[in-house]
């Protein structure tokens, strides 16, 4: 008898356990938000708060309820979050921001709703955007899959006050003059500041290294040459430019030894801002921070296009964030209304004035109020005309990973430049062989 009670108990406990598991597993389903669309965006807390404000404005204007899905600041984490929900065909998020480097992957995976037809029946004119950006980044297989919210490109920052002190008239156009000036100023400044370096750029093993490398090689007329399923990385121009990057650190010593280990955007930005460098390669976001209250270099910074070699052109790698609609969204029309709102003149102007974002619309760059507050927008517009995209391939990340690894090897001296480039080319070929679509 006693045994029987024990058994009953077990069954009761098991039943309770099962019930709790079911309850915890399914109670999530009942909490379906009463929102029309979900917008996924990441960034610093201040940026997210500003998005929340914009959303409130959009909601009162249209009556469409938007749920803000707050993503982390880190680009890779933002991407992982989106890839996970898109791969499992979830209806949320409906609309989101994407880094320009993922566009091809997302488009080729058929995750993005083409926006051409929506554009035609809307007030938004695609002519207002940087045409080069639209053609090079947002178009995939002849259809527009995204629109630029924020256009980015590598620029050169320089110290105006040091230029005056050393009687340098203008920012250098050629790398040759650039190196001479950097060496001269570095030698003098070292006497008072032992941490001073001529030039800071992003050389750590990450995506930023590829952006920098494309600018150096581009300014020599090189880059990644793609012809069908053939790729060329180990070229004369690339080898010259990569050697120059190595020389900046090891021969001229105008870039610090930790360039290839630690230098990412923020390390470069803070070091320059502390007054430890003459030149800095960075994205335009650094401008507002350099000019902020309490910045030691406030009012002493100039902005220019990156230098070039005698037989090349100044090159700036295209970066930035684009807005797109999920193929699996259950309210695409409402999502597009939100896209339209984000890309409207007023919102783009607000994003520029509040967050310092460089709009994807060209007309904001000539707005009097914007220019008064952000005078560097005038130079940015010219820089953005030299924009050069990273290869628009769905498997770009894997290609970039190979390039990062070998350029990093070359910069650390583990491999010679020639070896690094030829091995990178070899591996890049394998990547294309594996992931490139067979041409019919």
């Amino acid at each position, binding site marked *: 008898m006693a045994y029987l009670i024990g058994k009953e108990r077990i069954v009761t406990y098991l039943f309770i356990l099962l019930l709790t598991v079911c309850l915890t597993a399914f109670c999530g389903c009942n909490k379906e938000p009463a929102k029309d669309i979900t917008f996924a965006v990441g960034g610093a807390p201040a940026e997210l708060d500003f998005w929340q404000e914009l959303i409130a404005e959009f909601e009162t204007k249209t009556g469409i309820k938007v749920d803000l899905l707050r993503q982390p600041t880190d680009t890779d984490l933002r991407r992982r979050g989106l890839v996970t929900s898109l*791969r499992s065909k979830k209806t949320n998020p409906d609309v989101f921001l994407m880094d320009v480097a993922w566009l091809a992957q997302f488009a080729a*995976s058929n995750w993005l709703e083409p926006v051409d037809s929506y554009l035609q029946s809307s007030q938004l004119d695609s002519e207002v955007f940087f045409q080069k950006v639209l053609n090079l980044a947002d178009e995939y297989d002849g259809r527009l899959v995204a629109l630029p919210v924020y256009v980015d490109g590598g620029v050169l920052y320089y110290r105006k006050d040091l230029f005056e002190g050393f009687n340098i008239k203008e920012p250098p156009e050629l790398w040759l003059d650039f190196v001479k000036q950097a060496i001269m100023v570095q030698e003098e400044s070292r006497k008072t500041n032992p941490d001073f370096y001529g030039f800071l750029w992003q050389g750590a*093993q990450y995506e930023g290294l590829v952006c920098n490398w494309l600018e150096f090689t581009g300014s020599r007329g090189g880059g990644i040459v793609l012809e069908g399923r053939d790729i060329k990385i180990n070229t004369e121009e690339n080898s010259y430019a990569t050697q120059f990057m190595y020389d900046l650190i090891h021969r001229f010593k105008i870039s610090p030894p930790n360039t290839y280990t630690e230098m990412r955007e923020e390390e470069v930005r803070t070091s320059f801002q502390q007054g*430890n460098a003459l030149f800095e390669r960075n994205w335009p976001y650094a401008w507002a921070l350099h000019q902020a209250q309490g910045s030691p270099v406030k009012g002493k910074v100039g902005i220019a296009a990156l230098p070039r070699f005698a037989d090349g052109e100044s090159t700036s790698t295209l970066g930035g964030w684009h807005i797109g609609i999920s193929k699996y969204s259950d309210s695409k029309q409402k999502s597009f209304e939100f896209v339209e709102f984000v890309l409207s003149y007023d919102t783009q102007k607000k994003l520029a004035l509040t967050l310092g974002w460089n709009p994807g619309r060209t007309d904001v760059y000539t707005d009097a109020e914007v220019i008064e507050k952000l005078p560097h927008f005038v130079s940015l517009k010219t820089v953005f005309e030299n924009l050069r995209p990273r290869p628009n391939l769905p498997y770009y990340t894997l290609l970039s990973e190979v390039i990062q*690894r070998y350029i990093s090897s070359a910069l650390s001296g583990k491999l010679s430049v020639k070896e690094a480039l030829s091995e990178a080319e070899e591996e890049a070929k394998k990547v294309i062989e594996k992931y490139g679509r067979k041409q019919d």
Partner: protein
Amino acid sequence: MKNMAENRIEEPGMLTHRDIKSACLFILPLITLIFLFILVPVIGTFINSLFQDVSFLDKKFIFLKNYQQLFSDPGFRQALKFTMLFILVSVPLEIVLGTIFALLMNADVPLRGLLRACVLIPWAIPAAISARTWELIYNYSYGLANFIFTRLGITSEPVNWLGTSIGAFGAVVAADVWKTTPFVAIIVLAGLQSIPEEIINQAKVDRANLLQIFFKVTVPLIKPVIIVALLFRTIDGLRVFDVIYVLTGGGPGGETTSISHYAYKYFLSGDFGYGSAVSVVLFVVAFSLSVIYVKVGRFETGQI
């Protein structure tokens, strides 16, 4: 009373139908959990690894082609080599240091409670945060390591700690050892406390010196515990990710890319089949190592 007890002792040899049934009921929840949260993902990952599962290409069954590519992939071989080297260096260091800390914590020293709490701190800090702290220590321009070295005159110029293969390797190992030694210490401490004092006293009566007591009495008795610690640390070491992600990003030149970091890169770029294959290899390596440890562990306990 006596009779009843005797009756009970006789019973266990013979399992009745009822006993088996209730035993099954007891195990059922555990089996369900293992099935749901361990077997299903493992089998799912394995099945995935047999496919060309790239988000932007057609999904198709390619059997072992992912594995074939894996073993001719220099990037994967480098990651495998690094991960093996990493556990070969870091795990023994952690075990030796952990045992020393455990002995100290077990000894009758003043402020023992405080000492125990202090030793545990690194283990309590989230890995990403401790890795960030180490990043600040190694930092070239304002790191603590360079500050101390240049102040003491050991080096005249700051050292780029993460700049060479050996430097980056050492930096990752140091950060991991710092973080996980307390874990070993706690496990070994538990083992030390289970040693009956009489045995130690007996050894003292037999005039064994401290070293003899340690190697002939303590070590054999805590061997099973050390093997458990070894098992945990080896498997954890094989999967090392956070320290590397924060500290070196796999650089310089891919020298410090671990297997999980390598798999992560493929998952991120949309090749789930290949990423799964990398994960399966990692699983097989970890599983075989655990089997070896468990075998060795059982053998040892059998001897005691």
